[in-house]
């Protein structure tokens, strides 16, 4: 029998620390598959965040530079400017990119830095124990919003792709999800496109990935996949938000 699927070479054979059903591990695998397919293993440099994915350097077998909380795009800017021929991408969660790192994200996008950002949106702070994030949905219960997020006092959730789409130098922004086989295939295509935009030097590219957090959402993994389909995509519609032809 012919082997049709096995672990990508860019993904180390070690058990991951993520909870059962976590979207991070699926996204790590998709990135590793693309690094293999696009022969980027020797040239890619990833900047992981503070958050659940802080240990990404234990799993992806490529060069990594850990950034202080929220500053991944600023660190990636420096790396890309000194080493323009390397594939530079940051991997950030919603607390990292849309809360503490908002300034860095906005200005990196505004400058049109030639980097790609993998933005994992699970509408909650995962590693610190399920606190409210800027992307938490209206009415969603978290440990710091026990009666549900009140949009009158806490504001509505931030849609990062739509926010960045108003900036001139962003060239590729897409929102995808990793909650079903079809959506996972679309996510892989979206990340590939972001990498291609960087290779063709068109501008700043970002892929927002809706990902499940069964532990902090207090759901089983399958229910959290359905929750993305039924509730989360209404607030965060999937699809290409902006694309400049490259």
């Amino acid at each position, binding site marked *: 029998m*012919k*082997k*049709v699927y096995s672990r990508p070479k860019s993904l180390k054979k070690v058990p991951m620390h993520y909870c*059962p059903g976590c979207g991070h591990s699926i996204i790590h695998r998709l990135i590793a598959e693309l690094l293999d397919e696009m022969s980027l293993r020797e040239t890619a440099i990833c900047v992981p965040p503070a958050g659940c994915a802080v240990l990404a350097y234990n799993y992806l077998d490529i060069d990594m530079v850990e950034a202080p909380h929220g500053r991944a795009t600023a660190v990636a800017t420096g790396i890309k400017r000194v080493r323009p021929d390397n594939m530079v991408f940051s991997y950030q969660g919603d607390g990292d990119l849309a809360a503490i790192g908002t300034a860095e994200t906005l200005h990196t996008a505004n400058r049109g830095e030639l980097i790609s950002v993998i933005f994992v949106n699970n509408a909650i702070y995962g590693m610190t124990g399920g606190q409210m994030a800027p992307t938490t949905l209206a009415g969603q219960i978290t440990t710091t919003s026990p009666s549900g997020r009140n949009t009158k006092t806490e504001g509505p959730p931030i849609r990062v792709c739509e926010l960045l789409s108003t900036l001139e130098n962003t060239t590729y922004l897409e929102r995808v999800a990793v909650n079903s*086989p079809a959506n*996972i*295939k679309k996510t892989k295509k979206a990340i590939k496109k972001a990498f291609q935009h960087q290779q063709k030097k068109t501008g700043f590219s970002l892929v927002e990935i809706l990902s499940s957090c069964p532990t902090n959402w207090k759901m*089983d993994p399958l229910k959290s996949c359905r929750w993305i389909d039924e509730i989360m995509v209404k607030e965060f519609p999937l699809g290409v938000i902006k694309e400049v032809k490259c």
Partner: protein
Amino acid sequence: MKGKILIDKQFCKGCRYCVEFCPKGAIRLSTALNSKGYSFAEFDEKKSCTGCATCALMCPETAIEVYRE
């Protein structure tokens, strides 16, 4: 087309994604536990696996290898 899968039971955390999304219903959860204390996914060889690799696509732990004739 016939296929088969190999599941690394020590990597599996029993999230049930493969069990739910297998179009042939060829994967079930074990009654035994692995060294981490999770029920792990088991391949039912009596069912007709086509080697479509949907289980491997969904598996967060990359614990599944897929073979096809």
